[in-house]
């Protein structure tokens, strides 16, 4: 891996075949694909570098090695009310998250923007669920008229899902379900006795509701020298490479080619546009250490800065030709943002199985794929659908009021297993709506002089109606599973905490209503490609990262071929 010598100002030294903006979940795939095809590639990352293994500073620490036993200090929580809401933000992982004042933004409506500014981005701390999107997900906009029609269908992406799955390593079972197509899977991790019970009971009660093992980017078998050790400390960075992260998989692959120049501490201020040639010439970068402004040029540019930051960059890339942001002839840039509705939770207690437990910490759980508004299930109250993430665990500590509250009696109670708990979180698709938007502040800028982003995103009536249905089906699924004392709750969490922001630079067939064509290529600027979450024309209800990765690999392949044909 080669860090650019900052003193080299000569234009030649600052020219690359390709520039990739963002070294995270999706950008790292562009880096790998381009570098392996022989393109000299500059990979820009606004945060620091995190090298696999070497920089995982907390990965092997035990609870007692943290002064507060892995609890966030109240003053950190108080100063960082946004990031502190994230389930993965802990004493062991604070170094992987962006603190609230590091990069401010304006909430026109409440929006919890959870970020990771480093090589690897959020791929270091993600939840690793990788369900493929369904055939019907790419047809949804066309069918109900919300958002613009996707210019691609499932079959266009299927080989690229396979491509990234084979290399990343995905554990899962081939379940043969329309809602989550099968892929290239390593064997699934195994069901506990309780999980088997849940599957059997739910599936015998509901023919169309399936309880499957969530497909995850954790390795159930050794794969390219990596394997999951069942520690369940993924978010700290895994020294065994047990799960896919850019740091452990794609960035090292790109580096191994000798074609990658990785440049951390590089905030991209704008994409430069040349009106005479009708294409982008490169990027203007601010070195966050030296404050130096440096221009890099390239024949092709891939934007993978994470959805909202990609939008910020494109909106800030203004020229006479594009006064409202590069490629924005349609006025759709920053519109149709979408996300996932994770508000509804259901949980309860399961009697029995007192003689069963497990060993090892399985870094994932069960999944109930979407069953609403597909097949014969037609809902009158809402469009699209939702899935459930499902967990089960056994409480530690079995308190007995007949025993002494102190002494060996207490110790005994604390060291016994209690009953089983089962719970689910609904994961709902949010409609792409023109009203959900981001824009640039006209008055406020960040420490680099770049306008702050204003986020104006909310739930709509469709999501509220869907919440009501999730409460009902969630409770009836748990009931069918024999779960007692069922509690249903609405977290009322703001958009953003799902950490699945998407859209704003959506793909579409018509340049009048969309930014990108079916190859993630800007309609109006042929050598700029955008393939992170911002390119999504709809959200589906599956965790989206695997789709970003597949799309980026596909776009990179196309960009390379076009470049070789001289078509860019």
């Amino acid at each position, binding site marked *: 891996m080669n860090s650019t010598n900052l003193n080299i100002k000569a234009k030649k030294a600052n020219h690359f075949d390709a520039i990739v903006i963002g070294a995270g979940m999706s950008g790292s795939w562009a880096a790998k694909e381009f570098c392996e095809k022989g393109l000299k590639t500059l990979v820009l990352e606004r945060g620091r570098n995190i090298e696999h293994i070497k920089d995982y500073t907390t990965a092997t620490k*035990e*609870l*007692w090695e943290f*002064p*507060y*036993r*892995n*609890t*966030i*200090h*109240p003053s950190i*929580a*108080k100063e960082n009310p946004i990031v*502190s*809401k994230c*389930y993965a933000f*802990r004493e*062991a992982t604070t170094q992987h998250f962006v603190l609230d004042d590091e990069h401010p933004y304006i909430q026109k409506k409440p929006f919890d923007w959870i970020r990771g500014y480093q090589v690897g981005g959020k791929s270091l701390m993600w939840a690793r669920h990788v369900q493929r999107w369904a055939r019907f997900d790419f047809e949804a906009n066309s069918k109900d008229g919300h958002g613009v029609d996707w210019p691609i269908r499932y079959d266009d992406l299927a080989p690229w899902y396979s491509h990234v799955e084979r290399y990343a390593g995905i554990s899962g079972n081939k379940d043969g379900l329309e809602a989550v197509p099968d892929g290239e899977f390593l064997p699934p*991790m195994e*069901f*506990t*006795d309780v999980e088997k019970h849940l599957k059997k009971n739910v599936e015998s009660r509901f023919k169309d509701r399936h309880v499957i093992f969530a497909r995850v980017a954790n390795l159930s078998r050794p794969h390219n020298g990596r394997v999951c*050790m*069942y*520690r*369940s*400390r993924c978010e700290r960075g895994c020294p065994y490479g047990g799960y896919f992260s850019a740091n452990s998989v794609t960035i090292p692959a790109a580096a191994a080619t000798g074609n990658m120049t990785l440049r951390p501490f590089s905030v991209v201020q704008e994409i430069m546009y040349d009106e005479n040639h009708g294409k982008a010439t490169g990027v203007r970068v601010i070195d966050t250490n030296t404050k130096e402004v440096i221009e890099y040029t390239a024949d092709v540019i891939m934007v993978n800065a994470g959805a909202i930051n990609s939008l910020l960059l494109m909106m800030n890339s203004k020229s006479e030709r594009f006064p409202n942001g590069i490629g924005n002839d349609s006025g759709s840039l920053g519109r149709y943002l979408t996300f996932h509705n994770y508000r509804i939770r259901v*949980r309860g207690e399961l009697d029995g199985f*007192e*003689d*069963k*437990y*497990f*060993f*090892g*910490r*399985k870094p994932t*759980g069960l999944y109930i794929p979407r069953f609403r508004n597909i097949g014969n299930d037609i809902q009158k109250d809402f469009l699209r659908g939702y899935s459930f*993430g499902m*967990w089960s*665990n056994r*409480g*530690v*500590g*079995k*308190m007995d009021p007949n025993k*002494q*509250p*102190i*002494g*060996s009696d*207490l*110790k005994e109670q*604390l*060291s*016994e*297993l*209690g009953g089983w*708990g089962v719970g689910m*979180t609904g994961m709902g698709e949010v409609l792409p709506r023109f009203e959900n938007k981001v824009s640039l502040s006209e008055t406020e800028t960040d420490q680099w002089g770049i306008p702050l982003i204003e986020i104006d995103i909310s739930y709509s009536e469709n999501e509220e109606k869907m919440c009501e249905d999730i409460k009902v089906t969630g409770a009836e699924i748990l009931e069918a599973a024999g779960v007692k004392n069922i509690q249903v709750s609405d977290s009322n969490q703001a958009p953003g905490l799902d950490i699945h922001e998407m859209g704003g630079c959506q793909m579409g067939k018509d340049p009048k209503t969309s930014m990108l064509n079916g190859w993630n290529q800007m309609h109006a600027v042929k050598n700029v490609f955008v393939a992170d979450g911002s390119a999504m024309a709809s959200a589906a209800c599956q965790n989206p990262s695997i789709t970003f990765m597949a799309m980026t690999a596909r776009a990179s392949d196309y960009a390379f071929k076009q470049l070789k044909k001289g078509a860019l």
Partner: protein
Amino acid sequence: MDFISRKEALSRLGLFVGGVIFGAEAFLSGCSPRGTSTNGILDNDQISLLNDIAEIIIPTTSDSAGAKAANVGDFMNNIVSDFYNEEEQKQFLEGVDLLESKNFEQLSTQEKTDFVLDLEKEAGATSDMHYYLMVKQLTIWGYLTSEVCANELFINAPVPGYYDPSVDYKTGDKFMFPNTAIWEANNKARFHSNS
């Protein structure tokens, strides 16, 4: 995704003793807690006294060392100093003063046990905050996240290396130290429950 029912697990474990979550107040009320750089507000004698009381709450038994070996007094110092607000600190310190005045360390084990059982009753009889609940809560939290406990009360397996989905269990069996799934999540919920 939520892995467990956090509040429930806490309550089972006695961490929500009396329904009060000490320390959370600092975060919720906007009082700024002390910095993290000093040695804390308890002196060595007080830490030693707290270790003695904690040992009565969670004693050494035939198969595992107790709270004193886990040095939960030191952990209490970290949390009381850095997480508790001024009012909570004041109450905690008044409690420690009271215990010091009783010459707790001079008592026999039976006398210590009776003394702590009396405190249990006293704390249970009032709906107000009681310093004993703070001590007990911190004892349980500190012990169950300690190296001693992981190695002796449970099977410590930081790198399990494999997953066995079905292990037979009967009361009294040792099982895998539940470090990540239970404690990390719970302690987060404990201090940020209203966020």
